[in-house]
């Protein structure tokens, strides 16, 4: 049953991710990215992480993508700023081969680790796994320092964005 939900969602996610890369217009890329975020929220629900799934929709598909669309509209990009000839850019064969080996090695290690017994079947989960109460309790007890640091990070990012994007005063 889970497989029947997983495969369509996963293939949709991969297709829309390819759509982000392939699409010619930035607006089309942004729309594909929103669809990919929603598919990933579905996968998070499948993994019993309800809180993260809702956050994924609110923060990514909501806030961040609105920011992207806003900047795309603000800059009013037609098709300038994009080259059509990325295939003809100069290549480095050695780097290509080395990164191919890297990907193959990572995939081999993934298979080796996950084919061991303990990861073959999911753990038995308590009823409260992934709920807002459970995640929030851990966030505010065990991980309270990273939580506060994250708030400072967001404050710094906000100030930085205002300073960078404001019009010149001099």
């Amino acid at each position, binding site marked *: *049953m*889970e*497989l029947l939900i997983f495969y369509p969602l996963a293939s949709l*996610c*991969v297709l829309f*991710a*390819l759509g*982000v*890369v392939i*699409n010619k217009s*930035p607006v089309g*890329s942004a729309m594909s*990215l929103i669809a990919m975020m929603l598919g*990933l929220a579905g*996968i*998070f629900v499948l*993994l*019993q*992480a309800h*809180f*993260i799934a809702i*956050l994924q929709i609110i923060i*990514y598909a909501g*806030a*961040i993508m609105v*920011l*992207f669309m806003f*900047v*795309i509209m*603000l*800059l009013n*990009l037609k098709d300038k*700023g*994009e*080259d059509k000839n*990325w295939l003809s850019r100069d290549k480095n064969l050695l780097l290509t081969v080395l990164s191919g080996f890297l990907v193959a090695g*990572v*995939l081999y290690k993934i*298979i080796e680790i*996950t084919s061991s017994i303990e*990861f073959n*079947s999911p*753990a038995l*989960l*308590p009823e409260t796994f*992934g709920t807002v109460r459970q995640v929030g309790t*851990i*966030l505010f007890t065990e*991980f309270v320092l*990273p939580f506060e640091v*994250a708030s400072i*990070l*967001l404050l710094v*990012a*906000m100030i*930085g*964005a*205002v300073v*960078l*994007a404001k019009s010149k005063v001099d």
Partner: protein
Amino acid sequence: MDMGTVPLSHYLFLSATLFVIGVTGVLIRRNAIVVFMSIEIMLNAVNISLIAFDRYMNLHDGQIFSFMVMCVAAAEVSVGLAIIISVFRNKPTINLDEFNIMKS
């Protein structure tokens, strides 16, 4: 393993596939906004791995960590897009190959 449940490796392969797509997007596209979107794809791919390991090992640490990843992504996007806007004000293009105003 009964047939109903998804093995962990499937989630990890999905994560690896999305990450590779994100890397490809960063490498082949020259539109700065699309490059930022590809970085978002990579961050999301990492989140899948974290949450899948959480579910298979009955932990919550990965969910907390992916929460932090989302915070960093929000900060990164807001600062990055502000940088794009301020560069665009000096030179009206978002082609990364033409971003050489720092070069004297």
